[in-house]
Each structure stands twice: as structure tokens, then as C-alpha cells.
């Protein structure tokens, strides 16, 4: 009798949750992505990796598990520090009368040179920043940029693609022209010009704070692939009988587009979304390398990788490793999660 008393079918979201848990790969990747999200939240709240910009170790501090490795750079820096007494030049030095006053004033101040550690858990960079803290803080920026930009690009691409594919005719013609304009400009040129406009144009004040510029640049340049795919899917689906049947019962065009067709093409969008996240995280690396990415007072996987270039030559591999491992684990888990999500959303695979 329970089945008869239960008035509505199983809630779509609870069904999704149940099926996602049953899929082992999906459950594991969901766990990893959730762990990253918590890490990002803690990093954003300042609980984790707060001190990433403090110089806590000697330059290129060795990782904790490689403490015995000779660190020539740190040794070199110690050697160059001045030792001994400077020769007396007070007779010729015009500033000599001031010295005693400066000496007195300096005594009132206290500079604390923090104790620089010889080793850090996952090593240090050129200035002695903790690489592990940098990687955690970098995840926050990179993932936020990648996911936000991919979501924006997907929304733009899906909306335009849906309109072009569903309505056809002049709507399609207009949007195809827009698409052609965007794809005919080399994307790096487009990114440069957008970056120039957003950073120093009339909107510069709006986006002064940093990562939103990157998100907008990526979203505005990256929607085209999604648009084409979604448009093709809508062209295919708009004349399917289930859509005609929905029209026959009086469903509006909006309802047909987004309530009837959208769930049936969602697998295409989800797969493309995961590819976009991966691609955008990589583009952010390139942009940061070119100096168009996140501001210099922030850290991302991209800035870490561009620093790693020079470090690798002198055998300091840990910053590269940290950024790569963090990035690889997240991107793999994210791709697998979207795959499982697609399967979990498909009633045929229950």
C-alpha cells in the first residue's frame, strides 16, 4: 500500500544521489572533489594555508624527506651576508653626523628576522615560501577560476546553442555570424585584447580585484565549442516526436526547450563542461605565465608552474611536482565525476 500512498515518483535528486553512491568510481571521485572543495573553503576562510606568502624557510628549502640534500642556494646566500666591521670613513662621509641619530632611532624599532627553517614539509621556493601552502592556496584560485569560467561559458554556449538550434531561421543565422566572428579571430589575440580592455579600459575599476577578469576572458572566448554541440543536439531533437507531443499538449516553447529537450542533451553538456574545466585550468596557467592571469599577489597552479620552469634547471623539482599532483588528482576526479553524473542522470542505465 505504501506505493499507492506515495503520491509522487521518487524525487529526481534523491534518485541521482542514490545512483551516484552505487557507482564506485563515481563515489570515490565525488569524495575527492568534495575534499578539494572543503580544502578550498578552508583556504578561502583563512584556516588553511594562511601563511603561504610568508618566507618561512631558507630559499629552496629541501622537502622534509630530503633534508640531507645539499642546498647550495641557501649556503650561497649565507656566504654573501656581510661579516666584520666596515672601515672608518667618518672624515669624508657627509652623512656621518646623522649616524648616531639613526642609530638611536633604529634601536627604538625592532625588526624580527624569523627563524628560517632548513627544510619544509614539501620544500620551499626561491623566497622560502612553503610550497605545500602555496599549492593549497593555488588550488583555491585555479579551481575557482576554472569552474567559474567553465560554468559561465557553458551557460552562454547552452543558451545560444538552444536558441539557434531550436528556432533555426534568422535566429540561427544571426548566432552563426556571431560564432564565426568569435572563431575567426585567433583565440590568443582575442584573449589579449579582452585582457587589455578589462584591465585598463573603462571597466577596469569594476574588476580591479583580480580573478574575475580571468573568468570573464575565459568565458567569453570559450563558449563557442559548447554552442556548436548544443545547437546540433537541439536541431536533432526539436523535430523528435516527444517534442512534437509536448507541443501537442500545449507546452510552451520555453518549456519544450529547457524542460523537455535539455535533460535529453544534458550528457553532451556535462561531458563538454568537464572538458572545459580541464581546458580552462590549463589556459589559466598560460595566461599567468604571460602575465595576464591572476594578479601577482595571488598564487595559482599556473603561477607555480611558470616559476617551476627556472627552478627545474637547478634541480628543484618539488614546486612542479606539488602543482602537477594537485592538478592531476583534481582533474581526473572531476572528469570521472561528470562521467558518473551523466550515467546517473540517464534513466536507461538504472
Amino acid at each position: 500500500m505504501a506505493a499507492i500512498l506515495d503520491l509522487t515518483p521518487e524525487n529526481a535528486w534523491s534518485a541521482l544521489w542514490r545512483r551516484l553512491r552505487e557507482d564506485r568510481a563515481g563515489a570515490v571521485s565525488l569524495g575527492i572533489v568534495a575534499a578539494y572543495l572543503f580544502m578550498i573553503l578552508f583556504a578561502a576562510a583563512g584556516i588553511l594555508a594562511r601563511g603561504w606568502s610568508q618566507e618561512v624557510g631558507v630559499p629552496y628549502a629541501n622537502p622534509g624527506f630530503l633534508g640531507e640534500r645539499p642546498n647550495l642556494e641557501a649556503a650561497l646566500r649565507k656566504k654573501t651576508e656581510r661579516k666584520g666591521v666596515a672601515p672608518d670613513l667618518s672624515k669624508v662621509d657627509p652623512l656621518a653626523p646623522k649616524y648616531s641619530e639613526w642609530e638611536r632611532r633604529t634601536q627604538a624599532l625592532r625588526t624580527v628576522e624569523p627563524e628560517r627553517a632548513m627544510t619544509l614539509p614539501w620544500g620551499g621556493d626561491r623566497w622560502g615560501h612553503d610550497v605545500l601552502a602555496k599549492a593549497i592556496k593555488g588550488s583555491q584560485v585555479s579551481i575557482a577560476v576554472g569552474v567559474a569560467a567553465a560554468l559561465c561559458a557553458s551557460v552562454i554556449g547552452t543558451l545560444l546553442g538552444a536558441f539557434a538550434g531550436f528556432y533555426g531561421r534568422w535566429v540561427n543565422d544571426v548566432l552563426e555570424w556571431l560564432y564565426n566572428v568569435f572563431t575567426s579571430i585567433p583565440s590568443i589575440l582575442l584573449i589579449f585584447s579582452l585582457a587589455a580592455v578589462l584591465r585598463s579600459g573603462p571597466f577596469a575599476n569594476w574588476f580591479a580585484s583580480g580573478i574575475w577578469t580571468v573568468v570573464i576572458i575565459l568565458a567569453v572566448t570559450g563558449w563557442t565549442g559548447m554552442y556548436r554541440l548544443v545547437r546540433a543536439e537541439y536541431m536533432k531533437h526539436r523535430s523528435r516526436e516527444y517534442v512534437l507531443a509536448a507541443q501537442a499538449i500545449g507546452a510552451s516553447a520555453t518549456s519544450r526547450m529547457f524542460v523537455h529537450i535539455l535533460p535529453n542533451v544534458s550528457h553532451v553538456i556535462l561531458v563538454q563542461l568537464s572538458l572545459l574545466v580541464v581546458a580552462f585550468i590549463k589556459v589559466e596557467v598560460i595566461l599567468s605565465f604571460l602575465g595576464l592571469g591572476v594578479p601577482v599577489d595571488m598564487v595559482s597552479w599556473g603561477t607555480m608552474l611558470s616559476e617551476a620552469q627556472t627552478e627545474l634547471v637547478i634541480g628543484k623539482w618539488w614546486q612542479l611536482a606539488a602543482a602537477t599532483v594537485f592538478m592531476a588528482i583534481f582533474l581526473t576526479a572531476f572528469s570521472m565525476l561528470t562521467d558518473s553524473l551523466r550515467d546517473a542522470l540517464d534513466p536507461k542505465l538504472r
Partner: protein
Amino acid sequence: MSALLSVRDLTVSFVTRRTSLEVVHGVSFEVRENATLALVGESGSGKTVSAMSILRLLPENAVVDPASRVDYAGENLLTVSSARMRALRGREISAVFQEPMSSLNPVLTVGEQVAEVLRLHRRLSVRNALERAAELFDEVGIPEPRARLRAYPHELSGGQQQRVMIAMAIANEPKLLIADEPTTALDVTVQRQVLELIARLRSRHRMSVLFISHDLGLVGELADDVVVMRDGVVRESGPVERIFRAPQDAYTRALLACRPPLDSRPRRLPVIDDFMRSAHLNTAPLERPAPGAPVVEAKHLRKEFRLRTGLFRAKSLVAVSDVSFDVARGRTVGLVGESGSGKTTVAMMVMRLVEASGGEARLEGTELLGLTAAQMLAFRRRIQIVFQNPYASLNPRRSIGRTLAEPMRIHGLGASEAERYERARTLLDRVGLPREAMERYPHEFSGGQRQRIAIARALAVEPEVLICDEPVSALDVSVQATVLNLLLDLQESLGLAYVFISHDLAVVKYMADEVLVMRAGEVVERGTPEAIFRAPQHEYTRNLLAAIPRGLRSGN
């Protein structure tokens, strides 16, 4: 005559990660030399799986029981090497499939495709192979065979595509031709021609044919022996005359009886269940209400499609030129014709799913064609449609409950969501489905059940007119009867007016009170079904009548 191929105790299972499902349970049959064996059964009976295991063309997760044997010329085809199997396929045993369009490679010309088969097995030069392909095209009745060699599959009609497939199959003069529902996707008159072609080729080349079909009436004209299968088991087998004249099995009798009869109009068509439970057959004639005031009037409907041929040039294609009909409460008007005759376009214009180029469609005096989308919404409630393909007309991502509740929500029927779901359950009762169907998804149902769901969705808004666009064409013959019975029951209890569209004259004759025969967008003949059957005026109508399968071929 000795056996060319004998299948012994064939058992096939499909294995998934967790489960194993046996679909063919120890099937045995023999194909005699120079004869046709028909394998008949509904979808899901295992007939295609049985035939494909002969060629070893089963999906990867199919497991054939090691005790099974398929003996062909002293070899067990289930155990020979794959190199040997490749040599046999296409040369000794070849196959023709249901969908000619998806069986042909769309980017190669049909000539190249036929020539490829010849070159693979006979090592002919390109030139000689094309020469031979032209001869084959001539043999299978393709007009202008030499010119057609250079045609791409999409440039040919469905019937010609299937002829190309047959030409390819007989190119190497095989001993055995396996034809898996080769005519199901074709129009009735073309179906007839293809069947005659297969019969003619069989006797000329002295080969054997294994013909697979869901329609027992169809194979009677072609087969020498018949094997009737159901649920992976052979129910009955024997020479065709005995099967037709003295069927032993109740299921065979049911298959023979479920086609709408041409000479009478019983109140209820017999269905498989009646025979399996040996229930009393109701043979009372169907009573039809007298014509009254028309609910729907269509006058001079016309549709032109504009095809862009250049930047500024366009040519117009007349899909429907002048169609008029009207239908009263409780009555049915039937539109019959082949694909391309414009009958579906007529339905779409009345539904306003396609905008008409001219004419009128009135619903109780209100002209529908001029209404705005918002005004039309109120009328959508009163006129509904059931589409041909129940696999495509239900949204695969929605549970049945949501599918049925949506039209009620759009039209404000039912006070609350709970009430709508309750009404949806009542609808499921009405179309003979269990209430548990509410929470399930379309793919979990068979074709006949899906068509019932589509009918329930159309009835959800309590319409007065129901347009049935080939509602049973995609279904097995045995399932057709149950859906037709349901439609008649609903018409009687709800007083619905039907516009019934089909390519099958027998079905239209059973359902309709007035019949319009359409061809190339025009009505070529109209009248009562009895009159059209007794004295068809137009030659096209006579062709359609001749194409209806009538069981045993004359002379048997």
C-alpha cells in the same frame, strides 16, 4: 530434399556484469536445400538471435551454450575458426537486414559497395566487378542499372536500397540467404515487390532462404516451412500448409487470427491472450454510431514546402494539395497511403504542429488555422494526437507519472499535484497498465505498452478528437490487435472522434467509417470502407488492396 543447415539445441544467453539471461532455450530447426524456412515470432521471441548465431554475428556479451550445434555442409559453424567463418559469410551464407538505410554505407556509391563484395570473395578486377554489379542490379529490378551504380544510398528510395542489399547478398551466389525482417521498414506495395523478388531469386539460383518475420500472414505466401517461436522456444514447426490449415498450437492459431479480417468487422479483434487462455471469442459485429454534426471539418487543406536551392532561389514542393474531410463524435475517418503521400502532414496541419499553406480546419465551427499560439492553447485540450513511433514519442528522461501529469498541469486540470497523479493512475487503469507504471521510465516498457502510455497522455486532457498517426505501424501484428481494441473501447465509452492514419488498408478498413486514399498529396479515392473494398475505382487503391498479405499463396 536434404537439410542444408541444421540447428540443434541452440541455447543463447546474454551475460552482463551481474546477471545472465537465457533468451533462446534449446531451439532446433532445419533449412532444406532449395526451400524457404520462415522463422516467425513477436519481438523478444529470440528469432533474430537464433538467426544471427548462425552467422556468429551476435553482440559480444552473448554466450552460446557449448552443447549447441549449427551444422552446415559437415561443419559446426559455432566452432569453426574465424578465418573460415569470414570465408563463409557473404560467399556461402549471406544476410539482408531490416533497415536498408543503416545497412548501406552512406559515403560510398552503391556500385562500389556491391563491387567490394565481389572483389573480396572472387578476386575480380574493379572493372569486372562493376560490370557484374550492373548485371546484379538488373536482376534485382533496379531501373537503369548502369547509371544507378554511381548513386549514393540516400539518392535511392527505401525499396531500391533494399534491392541493393539483396543484390549484395546474392552477388556470390550463396547457398543460404538469411533475411531478417527485410520488408518491415518498407511501404506495403514495395513490401510485396521485394517479397516477390526474393521468391523469384530463390528459385532461379536454387538457394535456400531463412526468412525472419513477425507477421505470419506475410510468410504464408513465401515459405515452404514455418517455425513459430515465442519466448525463445519453438512452439510449432512444419510445412506451411499444415501450419495454416491445421495449426496445432494455440499461439500459432492466435498469430493467424490477430490480423484485422477483410471480410467482417467484429466488435473485438482476437488477441494472443484469448487463445492462450482459450477464452470465448466474441464475434459480434461492431456497431457504429450514425453520422452526426461534425466535430472537426477540414476543407481544402494545402501545404507547400519551400526548399532553398540557392541564395535567392527557392522551389516549392507541394506536400498536400487539396484535402477535405469531416468527422462526427464517436466516428472515425481513415487516411490511407504510403510514405510521402502527405497523410501525416494533414494531421500535423490540423494539430497546428505544421502551419498550413491554405485551407481551413474547424473544431466545432472555430477556425483553428488563424489562431495565435495563446488562443490555440485552449483548443489543444480538445484535439490530441498519438504518434507512430512509441519509442520516440515519450520523453526518455521522464517518469510515466510526470509525462501523464504534465498536460493536466498545463491546462489547469486537477486542483493539486496529488490529484493529478491520482487521475494519471486512473488513466493507466483505463489503458490497461498497472498503476506501478507511474514511477518507471519509457525504456522499461514494450512497444505496445508505450503506445498505451502515449494514448493515456493524449486522454489526460479529456479531448474530443484524437488523431492517430499510424498508431500501430511500429508494433508487432499480434500487439496491433490489442491497441486497436483499446482504441475502439475508448471511442465507445468516451465518444471520441478519430482521424485514423495508416499505410495498412486492412487496419483502416477495420477502424474507419469513411476512408480517404491518398497519393502524392492528393485524395485519389474516398468512400465507405466496404465500397472501397468491394469496388475500388482508382488503380492505386487496387494496388494497395493487392498488397495486403492474405496468408497462403494461391495454388497451395
